[in-house]
């Protein structure tokens, strides 16, 4: 099985994000990490590839110059990566991301495209469906359990009241939730091998996109105002001395819920 896994390099979530005052874009540090939620997609891709003597190719759009997150996923065991790293892509909308990734994936060929449900820094959560629509394949979204074989994929899809079992022929797009599998940690050998694995660098132009199709120009939206929101202030913080529950009871009384 030929498996494409979409991964995103994001600023380390442990460090506070900042917005550029002029462009209103998130200031992206030089070193970016693999979005934690993508490790699940990589793991599922590796498991399915191992079961089918298949290959796992990573696809990432990342106008940052960083390779750190890609290397993390290669160290887990992915075979190679295709990176679309192009300053022209800064400020791109989710749809542009989907178009660029879909074009790169189509160029390579695929049986299954795997992505996380939503990124940790964006949370839009529409890219996998956009890719599926562009590639004209079914999308198995919000998947919490995945099985594949005999040319089809079966998942458990989260719903508002429980879950549905959904079955699809290949090719297809699969969007997995974190927790669908336990991602492996890279081994020392994996980390060393990752440095030798091929990373193909493409520009938006290589995939046939003009400058006006991508980035802010092609986003179909413009940010007209940015303002800080007055945040909630921290209240009283106490160390539990064995009696902290009494302080909680007192506050519950004050709030008139008991």
């Amino acid at each position, binding site marked *: 099985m030929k498996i494409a896994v979409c991964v995103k390099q994001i600023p380390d979530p442990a460090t506070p994000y900042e917005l550029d005052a002029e462009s209103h874009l998130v200031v992206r540090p030089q070193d970016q990490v693999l979005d934690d939620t993508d490790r699940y997609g990589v793991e599922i891709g590796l498991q399915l590839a191992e079961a089918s003597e298949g290959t796992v190719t990573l696809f990432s759009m990342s106008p940052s110059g960083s390779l750190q997150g890609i290397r993390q996923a290669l160290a887990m065991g992915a075979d190679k990566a295709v990176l679309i790293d192009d300053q022209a892509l800064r400020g791109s909308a989710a749809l542009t991301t989907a178009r660029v990734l879909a074009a790169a994936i189509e160029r390579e060929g695929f049986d299954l495209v795997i992505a996380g449900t939503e990124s940790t820094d964006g949370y839009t959560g529409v890219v996998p469906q*956009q890719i599926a629509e562009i590639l*004209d*394949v*079914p999308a198995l979204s919000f998947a919490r359990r995945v099985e594949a074989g005999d040319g089809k994929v079966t998942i458990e899809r989260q719903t508002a009241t429980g879950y549905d079992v959904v079955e699809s022929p290949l090719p*297809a797009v699969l969007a997995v939730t974190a927790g669908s599998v336990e991602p492996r940690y890279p081994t020392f050998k994996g980390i060393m091998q990752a440095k030798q694995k091929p990373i193909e660098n493409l520009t938006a132009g290589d995939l046939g996109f003009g400058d006006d199709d991508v980035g802010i120009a092609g986003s179909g*939206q413009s940010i007209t105002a940015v303002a800080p929101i007055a945040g909630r202030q921290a209240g009283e913080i106490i160390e539990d001395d064995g009696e902290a529950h009494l302080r909680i009871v007192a506050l519950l009384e004050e709030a008139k*819920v008991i």
Partner: protein
Amino acid sequence: MAILVFSEETDGHASASALELTSKAAQLGEVTVFHVGEGSADALAELGAHGATSVHHMDPGDGLPAPAAAAAIADLVGGDAPAAVLFGMGNTDRDVAGRLSARLGRPVLAAAVDLSIDPVRVTSEILGGTQQIITEATAQAPALVIVRPKAFAANDTGGPAPSTTAVAAPDVGRSGSAVVVERHVEEQEGPDLEAANVVVSGGRGLGGPDNWHLVEELAAELKGAVGATRAVVDAGWVPYSLQVGQTGKTVKPTVYIATGISGAMQHMVGMKDSGTIIAINKDADAPIFGIADLGVVGDVQQIVPKLIEALKARS
């Protein structure tokens, strides 16, 4: 100005988000709803009562609804385009919005907490709710907007049943070949999470699913609802329907008690507007303490049982 609202039926009712969006859209212009599901009389009546004048109803049968729904909506808005198509944050809502976006070549304006039209401008909160941005749709109509739960109030204005048009699910070929082979409802006890006066939520800091009963017992003692972080939902401790946060439910109870929750942005966006926030966590640096009215630094497994006992002793 015409506005189209997406609605998905669950258990014979329109989704809460669809009623909120219909109410808001009715203030801005004429509302048409695209309703996916069985099309029960109750669901249609609810949409009408909240201001929808017409409903296009599509029953997706056993197919996953997004590809057919997106194709049908694309047909509907092809001629005289509405100013905007509004979606909630539900899984099917987001699926249809993504499909439709690619089909029409329009961006999705996501996580809106406020909306105006002519031109379409959405307000959204980013970076964990610390910054507010206003984004204007500059592409051709319709603008596609995903709105956060509870951004708008649902107003039952007693409107009449809407005129309903059945829409056949269009043949979308290969895209539509995924089918639902089984449906499972995970039963829930206790009050509705989104309407409860008290919510008790648990996170990874509880240590494991074996300790989840602490959250349930405390919630029961306070006649409250049980919530969870994405981390524990993803880990399979509890179903997704309990998830509070950016991609789960938004709650605004009188009292919110966070047990073993560090306070990821994802979670805090869904509960930061609660009345009183009480947090118990062993890590004094946990971000949740930054928004808590009372933060208790300590061991959840020690404190929560004592709290339950103290509450029992009062009753």
